[in-house]
């Protein structure tokens, strides 16, 4: 009941269409978006958001870069790779602030700590940067990479794990597969990669073409604020906040999603309470970029001032955090949403 009631004579705001491509099938990570939609936040903001889902996460940035969709949810590492490949895509809000990707094993494999990976078989999704996590983890644990057998199992991570074809997987999410396996009483050992020596990064990030941010600045701004309100609402009442997600996606299991939302709540918001929802930590991006360079995933560091902006975030954060690595260089004026500082 917080909406102001403008006079009956006032015309409704013109609605603008905005297409949103999720990173994967709708799931608990998207809970705030559905909440915002159900609460009419997009409508209030004069937006009609068309939600689209891929079945193939690799296609998300392709569609953004090519301009098929206005905004999308993608992964921080992939956005950096896309920039390195010359695509002018820009991250403008984080949906999940920290890594979800985890090392998961089942009790029979007896992997309590990374050092136990020695002589074991690890399944990965064949994604280069995730494979590099394993290198980093092993290095930190002092295990010779040659002593670990790696298997590229594509999208069959969980099946390979459950079929005992691998001793551990690297690539599944602690908040999803981790929860689901626990619920199903498989007693998994789940460790997020950032707890194993991989630099922290934002797992899910809102992204758009720079061109879109420039041309449709206002729409994107309104969109981000609406989504933020959605996630805030979920935080206040996670159980009721999950209902819209479940309504929109009847194939989701209610108990699982509620539990995932519960577990993930903290990761939807920056650690620092002062920062608004969606905060993008430039130092984190820089550290991660450095790690990518060190691991041969990037040939050179990318210009972060072109890749990331916090200009679209709500409240205090808006226009504030735009920084280059080390905070020294001045922000690029070409950056979308730049209003000087």
């Amino acid at each position, binding site marked *: 009941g917080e909406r102001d009631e403008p006079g009956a004579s006032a015309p409704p705001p013109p609605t603008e269409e905005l297409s949103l491509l999720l990173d994967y099938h709708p799931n608990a990570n998207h809970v705030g978006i559905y909440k915002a939609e159900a609460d009419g936040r997009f409508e209030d903001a004069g937006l009609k958001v068309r939600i689209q889902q891929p*079945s193939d996460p690799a*296609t998300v940035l392709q*569609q953004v870069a090519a301009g098929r969709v206005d905004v999308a949810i993608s992964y921080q590492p992939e956005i950096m790779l896309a920039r390195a490949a010359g695509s002018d895509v820009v991250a403008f809000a984080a949906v999940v602030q920290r890594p979800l990707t985890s090392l998961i094993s089942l009790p029979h494999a007896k992997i309590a700590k990374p050092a136990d990976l020695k002589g074991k078989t690890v399944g990965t999704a064949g994604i280069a940067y995730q494979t590099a996590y394993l290198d980093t983890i092993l290095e930190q644990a002092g295990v010779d990479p040659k002593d670990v057998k790696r298997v590229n199992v594509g999208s069959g991570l969980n099946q390979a794990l459950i079929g005992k074809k691998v001793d551990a997987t690297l690539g599944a999410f602690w908040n999803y597969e981790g929860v689901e396996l626990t619920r199903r009483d*498989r007693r998994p050992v789940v460790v997020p990669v950032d707890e194993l020596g991989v630099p922290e990064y934002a797992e899910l990030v809102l992204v758009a073409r720079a061109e879109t941010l420039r041309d449709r600045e206002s729409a994107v701004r309104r969109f981000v604020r609406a989504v933020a309100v959605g996630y805030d609402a979920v935080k206040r009442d996670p159980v009721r906040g999950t209902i819209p997600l479940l309504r929109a996606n009847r*194939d989701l299991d209610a108990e699982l999603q509620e539990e995932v939302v519960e577990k993930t709540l903290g990761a939807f918001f920056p650690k620092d309470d002062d920062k608004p929802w969606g905060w993008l930590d430039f130092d984190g991006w820089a550290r991660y970029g450095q790690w990518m360079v060190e691991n041969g995933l990037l040939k050179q560091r990318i210009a972060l001032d072109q890749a990331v902006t916090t200009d679209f975030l709500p409240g205090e954060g808006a226009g504030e955090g735009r920084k280059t690595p080390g905070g020294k260089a001045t922000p690029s004026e070409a950056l979308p949403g730049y209003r000087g500082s």
Partner: protein
Amino acid sequence: MRRPLHPAVRVALGVLGPLLLLAAWQAYVRLADVDPILLPAPTDVAASLVDDRSLLWDAFVVTGQEVLLGLATALVLGAGLAILMHLSAIVRAMLGPLVIGIQAVPIPVLAPVLVFWLGFGVGPKIVIVAIICFFPVVINTLDALDRVDPDLGRLLQTMGASRRQRLRWVELPAALPAALSGAKVAVAIAGIAAVFAEYAGAEQGSEGLGLLINSARFSLATDRAFAAVFILAVFAVLTTGALALAQRLLAPWAHRRPGAPR
């Protein structure tokens, strides 16, 4: 003089075969104690079929539509292209390798480009189903046209038949039975083609069986994934059966009973 089976017996056996497989599967899962996330028991799948029926039905409607539209496109374009390649040695030489080459393009590479052009609606799915189903139709039709007894065509030539008339009266009817074998292959694989096609993505609320299978796997609800697969399989059996029937009705002369004289 072999007797054909009574149709009722045939249907009974057709049901018995899969039932035996299901029984063996059930026994295996129970005895070997296979994790249901990996391979659910048929009874679990059946339970999911019942529990998730409305969900599955909605997804099936989406996928069924993609299958039918894509298949229709494939049949029309496939037969058309085969005829064109049959008529023109130049078209054939130019397009032959292309048609085969395109067949070898994995869907995941193709899908994003199609989505870019056609959006997340039914468009790219129809194109993908059509591409997958198109090839057996082309090859079978073209090969069948090539094998037509040339004497028949030459006889028509003496009657002053135009190229088009020769095609209409001799080559198409002669090639029809073998061409329909290609259509049968196309029909049988159309379902799986639609599943792959849906990996291209979809608009919220219009997910087909392909997406359903995938998200079920993501949620470790393997029984639901198998329930969807079961629906796909039944659909394939029914559509292929319908085409086999059509084959007999459309080309009765090619299916003389072995017992009948002459």
